[in-house]
């Protein structure tokens, strides 16, 4: 007994240190971006979050809730406090506040940069706890180690990638852990914690709808498969009630928590679980015969009520145009929805369905381990393992719809692979142990209590599932739990027979050793791939680009060059128009008002900018002038070969613009269905504003050829002049070009010219433009 308790203590300490190292690994593998580049906020959305955090730390929480941002979506503005998921911001803000009250003067930027790695470590630990609840410590540690470096998660949580997902994945796993924990213990304490964790998840990410659909699905599965228990009731009902109430407190969710279809499943299951609970209760107090009568009565009445309720619901849902579902959710259910109806959602690359290589890139060998893990989860099937199975199945589907949701798949894949690896290791090491001559002598003595932990826990689970029908009355305090464990051990001793039976199913020694080696090799391959992905594929901040040339590293820092120029050399209230991709960055880095940004909440506004970009110069000038725009910013990669520039995004501008303003027609910009900018391009294309602003005086850079390095062709129209715009700044590598709208001429134009312009530009927008220019008519 002394020996085993010492063994336990040693195991716990070892486990603690392994977890610590896993946390350290999760943190440090994400620092490649800081080491290779610099400590800077990445990409687009993180810049917005960073700006919001800056506002929060500067003005406090109350101003944050009431913040109306007038520097974006000009002239509409945006209510930030009510339209943003505040979890990430509040987390980083709190971190910053704590550090500063300890007199550790880290800047807001530094805190924001390192929030994601810190929360990845937390996520790894949460994975450990979740998997431990499902399959024991060994599987937990394996899963945590896998999650710490899974490329899919790294892609969203490298240092500097300050985005909602960074904290949301932790919240997601932790919520699941608490749910499973409640399922296993039936403790109301964990149920309450679960609701709070769910609240944190709602604060953090729109992906919370995944939780509020997955958990009801699992509850329903349990009920249907006859696994209803009081634990399930305690795990489910407080979560729905408390969780929904808490979710409604988040301004961005508000009444959506009870009004939109995404949440209906939880309420439906809430009703069902009560009906089932009632049925079980009645079954307990009635005789079987009476119960049968009661069932027929209730079913007939219940059906009528259900039909009525369903009819009302259907009527309610059908009355809303999107059937009560948000566009993004709908495109999840029907993958073709977005491309058919909402070009804005379809235009974002992370909303596209993934390709097969991207699975291999993002979860690598886990893809092969997952099936094994699923099999392991069925041996035996518990509530917890059925939950994990459900989780992996749904997340595989969602990841197939949207690349972005690969992120939800990653933890599930890690858990499954952790279980698979752990089980495989158990089997192989056990086989070796039994056949190894040195140990085999003592194996009979060891058999009882030195079984490796996972298999011990399997038994524990079996015992638990046996006990499930007994109501758990005891409050599981720390002491009790220890006793319980000892009890489990005691109970496992009598079952030694069954265990020995299991032991007999051992694999040959050579096979085991070879398989072990292969497994280790597989793990090593995974590690190498993850380090490579973290270092090479996912650590680029995308605002600063580098290229390796024979002369050394070449840095393209054009974006910040342009934003710094804007912020220092233009008036503080000037409006800058650009395609929406650069909206967040412009407001955050240049502190200038933008017309549209990455929030994309107003399709018409974006379409207006798209229309301006695809219109001829004069019409575009009128649109921009009507929006008070002073500067137009375009991103141009033709000189250095930067492929994601505005010319390559231009067709989306045409599509989105044409969706609202029908005079912009996509075929006008295509020659025989092909998008080209060379001499074969259509005149509409060669005369639109985007073409002109991108290629203005470009031909002079390479002595009259005008060779575009991205499109790998000579440009179609080489020499032209701008009449309504003037170049005010172009960055060193020409990647960002900023133009200023020339002020309108003083004289009134002659009538012939005016009528000409009228025919060439859009109707209602043009009217406002002419009115502005010519108040006498």
């Amino acid at each position, binding site marked *: 007994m002394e020996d085993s308790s010492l063994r336990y203590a040693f195991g716990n300490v070892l486990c603690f240190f392994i977890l610590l190292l896993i946390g350290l690994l999760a943190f440090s593998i994400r620092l490649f971006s800081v080491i290779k580049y610099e400590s800077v906020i990445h990409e687009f959305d993180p810049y917005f979050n960073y700006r919001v955090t800056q506002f929060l730390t500067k003005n406090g929480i109350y101003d944050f809730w009431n913040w109306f941002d007038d520097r974006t979506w000009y002239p509409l503005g945006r209510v930030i406090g009510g339209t943003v998921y505040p979890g990430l911001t509040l987390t980083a803000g709190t971190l910053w506040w704590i550090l500063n009250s300890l007199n550790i003067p880290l800047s807001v930027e530094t805190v924001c940069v390192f929030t994601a790695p810190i929360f990845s470590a937390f996520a790894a630990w949460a994975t450990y706890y979740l998997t431990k609840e499902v399959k024991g410590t060994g599987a937990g540690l394996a899963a945590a180690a896998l999650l710490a470096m899974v490329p899919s998660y790294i892609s969203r949580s490298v240092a500097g990638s300050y985005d909602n997902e960074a904290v949301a994945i932790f919240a997601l796993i932790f919520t699941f852990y608490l749910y499973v924990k409640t399922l296993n213990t039936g403790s109301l304490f964990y149920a309450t914690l679960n609701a709070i964790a769910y609240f944190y998840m709602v604060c953090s990410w729109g992906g919370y709808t995944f939780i509020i659909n997955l958990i009801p699905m699992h509850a329903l599965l349990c009920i249907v498969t006859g696994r209803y228990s009081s634990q399930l009731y305690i795990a489910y009902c407080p979560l729905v009630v408390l969780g929904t109430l808490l979710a409604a407190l988040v301004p961005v969710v508000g009444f959506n928590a009870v009004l939109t279809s995404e949440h209906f499943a939880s309420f439906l299951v809430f009703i069902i679980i009560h009906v089932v609970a009632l049925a079980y209760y009645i079954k307990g107090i009635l005789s079987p015969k009476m119960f049968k009568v009661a069932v027929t009565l209730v079913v007939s009445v219940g059906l009528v009520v259900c039909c009525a309720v369903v009819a009302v619901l259907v009527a309610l849902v059908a009355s809303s145009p999107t059937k009560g579902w948000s566009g993004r959710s709908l495109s999840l259910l029907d993958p073709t929805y977005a491309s058919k109806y909402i070009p804005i959602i379809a235009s974002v690359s992370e909303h596209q369905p993934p390709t097969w290589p991207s699975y291999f890139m993002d979860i690598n060998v886990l893809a092969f381990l997952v099936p094994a893990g699923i099999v392991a989860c069925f041996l035996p099937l518990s509530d917890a393992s059925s939950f994990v199975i459900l989780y992996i199945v749904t997340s595989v589907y969602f990841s197939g719809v949207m690349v972005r949701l690969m992120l939800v798949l990653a933890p599930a894949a890690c858990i499954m692979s952790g279980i698979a690896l752990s089980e495989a290791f158990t089997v192989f090491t056990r086989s070796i142990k039994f056949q190894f001559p040195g140990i085999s002598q003592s194996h009979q003595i060891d058999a009882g209590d030195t079984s490796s932990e996972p298999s011990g826990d399997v038994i524990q689970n079996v015992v638990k599932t046996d006990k499930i029908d007994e109501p758990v009355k005891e409050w599981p305090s*720390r*002491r009790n739990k220890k006793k319980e464990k000892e009890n489990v051990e005691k109970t496992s001793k009598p079952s030694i027979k069954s265990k020995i039976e299991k032991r007999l199913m051992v694999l040959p020694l050579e096979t085991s050793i070879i398989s072990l080696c292969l497994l280790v090799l597989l793990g090593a391959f995974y590690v190498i791939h993850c380090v490579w992905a973290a270092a090479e594929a996912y650590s680029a901040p995308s605002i600063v680009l580098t290229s390796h040339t024979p002369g050394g590293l070449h840095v393209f820092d054009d974006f*910040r*060059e342009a934003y710094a*120029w804007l912020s220092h050399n233009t008036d503080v209230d000037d409006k800058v128009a650009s395609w929406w991709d650069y909206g967040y960055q412009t407001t955050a880095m240049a502190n200038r008002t933008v017309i549209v940004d990455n929030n994309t909440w107003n399709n018409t506004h974006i379409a207006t900018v798209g229309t301006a970009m695809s219109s001829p110069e004069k019409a575009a000038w009128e649109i921009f002038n009507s929006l008070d725009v002073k500067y137009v910013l375009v991103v141009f990669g033709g000189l250095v070969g930067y492929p994601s520039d505005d010319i390559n995004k231009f067709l989306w501008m045409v599509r989105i613009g044409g969706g609202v303003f029908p005079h912009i027609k996509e075929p006008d910009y295509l020659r025989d269905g092909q998008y080209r900018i060379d001499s074969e391009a259509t005149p509409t294309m060669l005369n639109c504003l985007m073409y002109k602003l991108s290629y203005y005086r470009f031909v*002079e850079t390479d002595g009259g050829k005008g060779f575009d390095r991205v499109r790998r062709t000579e440009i179609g129209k080489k020499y032209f002049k701008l009449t309504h715009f003037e*170049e005010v700044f172009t960055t060193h590598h020409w990647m960002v070009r900023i133009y200023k709208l020339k002020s309108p001429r003083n004289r009134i134009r002659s009538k012939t010219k005016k009528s000409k312009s009228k025919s060439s530009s859009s109707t209602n927008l043009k009217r406002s433009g002419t009115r502005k220019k010519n108040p006498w008519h």
Partner: protein
Amino acid sequence: MEVGVAKHGIYLILLISLVTLSNLSTVRSSSSDLQIVDAERRIDVTSHIVRVYLTLKVENTGKSSASEVLLAFSPEQAKNIANLQAAFVTGKKKKKSYLPLKVNPTDLPDSPNGTKYFTVYLLNPLSTGESVTIEVLYTLTHSLQPFPVEISQSEPQLVYYHDSALILSHYYIKKQKTMIRTPSNKVESFTRVEPADRKGTELKYGPYEDRSPYSYSPVIIHFENNNPFAVVEELVREVEISHWGNLQITEHYKLAHGGARHKGVFSRVEYQGRPSGSGASSFKHLLAKLPPRVHSVYYRDGIGNISSSHLRSDLRKSELEIEPRYPLFGGWKATFTIGYGLPLQDFLFESDDGRRYLNFSFGCPIAETVVDDLTVKVVLPEGSKNPSALVSFPVEQNLETSYSYLDVVGRTVVVLKKKNVVPEHNIPFQVYYNFHPMFMLAEPLMLTTVFFLLFLTSLAYLHMDISIRKS
């Protein structure tokens, strides 16, 4: 106009207070007692900082001995004087040696047209009939006025320089001449005050003879000056002393191009294609001279690292070549931060009375810049007492407290402020303070205690049964 008058009034009051401060108990010798036998003035307008070298041979013609010499400046010029040094010259041409003299701004009650004065205090009183040679160097900032005020990318930058052909003086000047050196021989025009002459890059006024006190003859020189007009509008230098062996310097710059404003189009094609003809007055490099053995240099701004800088360091000095994110044209601005660490033993010493002192240079390390508003903050380690700063020119001083990593009582910060700083101010200053080495251990001890308590509480928690119900 009224504002101007009010300004002058304030200025007068300031000057009067300065005068009362400086101990002028000695009886001032009357003006007519001194005369200047020979005056030579060389004005250097090649960069945007105007440097004037004035050599005066002063003779005492009065009866009593004189110990002070007055220098007179027009109010416009006095406003822009950043620095004024005077030296006493001994020896002949080749074996000249200079002895610095004390100089103080002074005010006279009956100064004509608001003339401003500086008093030079001679080492030995000048007795009757003796003569002495004084060399004066003063620097003027913001004295080159761009005209035209706005230029386009392809135009060169032309500036005006206003001065007088005759040296403004409180004394009678027997003989004088003025030489002005322009950056190139492209001089559009200059006021002729015969005899005046131009040869290459040098303009010569004079010699003029026998001019009475307060003679003034305004001249305007209009010439091309494409040198970088690098003006730092605001510079905050933070010098943080850590007794663990490091001196951390952080400098926050607000840089502007102070020349003719850029107008209209900025074309990258022209800028990169014809580097000579386009954007001649713009600049894209700056050179900062840092102390030797500098380490961990960084160069960034509010939105991250600025990836264009080079550091060359050898045993005697380190040179940091910095490139703002974009070339600066007239009127364009940029902000950035430079930070670096230095070994403490090069700059921190112990004085004879057991106090420690920091010996560090005052001004801006970037070559040929004017700093409009300079703040030097010396952050002393936590627990230092009795700080005092020793600067060889007048600065505004006060104390602050700042909190950094795990501070409890805060660090004392000596704040020194000065307006209109030129490279001539890059001379060492000292900050003295008392410090007990025990304070170095305060933070490690604090951390140790916290962790010790943490372990202790967790130990206690694990050994206590806090459940309500006994099982």
